[in-house]
């Protein structure tokens, strides 16, 4: 096949010419910039070096391509390189952030006590084989669970109002929900602080923190749930109505079961957004090193708050603990996110085998001729 190259049109955009000109420009720029930057000009610093290298690389690449092609092709090639660089920079930032945090926190995380002890009785300078994030993890789980309990029913009901009932207020509610998603998280904390702590006179507690997180989570859940409900085919609703079901029955037996996997995704994404929020908790939860299972009374620490507090001690061990907590937080977000994606990957209205059996049984009873069918 290789001896008749003209018979085949190459559709791949990666040609030997492209690769060689890229490599040539990159190496040439590296040599040039190293000479100028490190040897001749009084400049230093990694970031500056690579910025200069990139500029020189673009210029050299334009020249190399310009040797064989016209100006249009040169600008096309340069644009491709610039956009790809932007993409590459963005994704390498993500990898750098994750890699750096895990690397710095590793010394703390690989001690088992990091997950089973608290920092209640030790100082910030204590060795890493003592103390840990147990109290913070308990706080995070309780606060996030409470805020989910508050915001999910409210959010899904709001979505039902927007998409199923479509009442007079739907337009206003939709606008307000959109506006609420954009409110800075610290204002959610400030609001709960002003309302619950200052006005109602309660102390800072885990519950107050959950309320702040719920205020932040509610618009996210409401908005994504509405988008999900919109994807439920109208034919299903009409079929249900044609069988004589009321709107409540349609919602309960048709719309919600159909949308269930996507609703779970919406909730998980909402949880992933609030699980690492620090600023609202800073104002509402108070801080303690002690283990506090009771979200209703007394201050309660959580993972982001723990990381935030530890990192401000000018001590290496405390900072490593902060990075350990941040790594745990990242892992939590990653878990929530991946499970959201996996569930979202299922098609809308996917029925698991167990449920299919249950439905078949229900159908058999419903169509059983011996059963008395009530007439309208």
């Amino acid at each position, binding site marked *: 096949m290789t001896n008749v190259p003209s018979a085949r049109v190459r559709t791949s955009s990666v040609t030997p010419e492209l690769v060689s000109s890229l490599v040539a420009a990159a190496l040439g720029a590296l040599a040039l910039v190293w000479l100028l930057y490190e040897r001749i000009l009084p400049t230093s610093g990694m970031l500056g070096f690579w910025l200069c290298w990139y500029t020189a690389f673009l210029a050299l690449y334009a020249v190399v391509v310009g040797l064989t092609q016209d100006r249009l092709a040169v600008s096309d090639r340069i644009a491709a390189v610039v956009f790809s660089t932007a993409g590459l920079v*963005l994704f390498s*930032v993500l990898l750098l952030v994750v890699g750096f945090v895990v690397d710095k926190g590793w010394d703390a995380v690989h001690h088992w006590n990091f997950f089973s002890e608290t920092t209640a009785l030790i100082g910030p300078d204590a060795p890493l084989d003592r103390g840990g994030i147990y109290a913070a993890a308990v706080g995070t789980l309780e606060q996030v669970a409470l805020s989910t309990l508050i915001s999910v029913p409210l959010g899904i009901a709001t979505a039902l109002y927007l998409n199923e009932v479509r009442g007079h207020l739907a337009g206003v509610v939709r606008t307000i929900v959109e506006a609420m998603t954009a409110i800075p998280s610290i204002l959610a904390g400030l609001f709960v602080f002003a*309302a619950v702590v200052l006005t109602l006179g309660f102390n800072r507690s885990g519950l107050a923190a959950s309320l702040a997180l719920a205020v932040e989570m509610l618009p996210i859940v409401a908005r994504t749930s509405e988008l999900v409900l919109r994807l439920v085919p109208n034919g299903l609703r009409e079929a249900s109505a044609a069988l004589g079901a009321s709107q409540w029955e349609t919602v309960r037996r048709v719309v919600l079961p159909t949308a269930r996997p996507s609703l779970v995704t919406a909730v998980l*994404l909402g949880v992933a957004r609030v699980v690492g929020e620090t600023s609202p908790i800073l104002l509402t939860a108070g801080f303690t090193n002690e283990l506090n299972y009771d979200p209703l009374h007394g201050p309660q620490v959580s993972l982001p708050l723990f990381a935030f507090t530890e990192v401000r001690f000018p001590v290496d061990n405390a900072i490593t603990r902060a990075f350990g907590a941040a790594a745990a937080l990242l892992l939590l977000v990653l878990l929530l996110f991946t499970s959201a994606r996996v569930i979202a990957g299922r098609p809308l209205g996917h029925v698991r085998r167990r449920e299919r059996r249950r439905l078949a049984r229900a159908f058999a009873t419903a169509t059983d001729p011996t059963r008395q069918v009530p007439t309208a």
Partner: protein
Amino acid sequence: MTAVVDRPLERTSTESVPLADERAFRAVVRGCAIVTLLLMGLIALFLLLRSWPALHRAGFSFLTEKRWLPDVNHFGVAALLSGTVVIGCIALLVAVPLALGASLFINEYAPRRLRRLLVSMIDLMAAVPSIVYGLWGFFFLQPRMIGLSRWLSAHLGGVLPFLHVHDADTPSSFTSSAFIAGTVVGIVVVPTVTSVMREVFSQAPVAEREAALALGSTKWGMIRTVVIPFGRGGIIGGSMLGLGRALGETIAVYLIISPILDYTTHPLQSGSNTIAAFIASRSTESSSIGLAGLLGAGLVLFLLTLLVNSIAAVIVARSRSGAVTE
């Protein structure tokens, strides 16, 4: 048979007196929607109500006073506001070019098989907590950016006076600056901006793209003449949305800047402040007038972000409605 025909008619005519279940369902759902609606109103109401003593006492000078001495009645958000705006603008300078390039890369240049993965990576990046970015910015990015700051101030400081830095010999004059904080905030908001831009770009009409390519345009020519003009609303709206997020970013800023109560006029110089970071730093404030002042600062931030985000929403909505009629 008549029963079957009658039923839908009956249902439409008795819409106002539905079954008990039905009535309860609607009442509950409407109630929840109203609670959501009220919550937003309550946020504004409580901020206004609890900050009223401070706003009343400070009067209009709350917006022009830069000091924060609530006990002697000299307090205002002017310095904080300047820092907030400067850091927001630096964040945009970082985020918008990066997001523009990355969204075009994902839509136009990345291999088709990778596209889904890249989109979920952007979503994941948006879900990474800002404290993680803050830690990374302080310990990883800051030491690597001092060289750049020094170079900028040494070579451009003469031409652009706002880039000048006092005590340029000591490295600590370059740390904890608005420039570094703004860069980190820019990285925090990049995913949001990218996903808005990417979504709008992906709605560019296929027929026009193909027409441009069929006329012999290069890929860049097609992007320049079809995708970018079509997505202009998305670019502006996405940037505004990013600005809204950047103005309210708290923890990443708080970890990096060294707080001062003066106008942020030299972004490369150490020291700045934003409303959000200031509120977080004074969260243990005890005097009632000081607390009221903090809530007043919160109210200013609330109005500022509401304004920016409403403008963004209008622009994005307009560009999307254009997509539908296309």
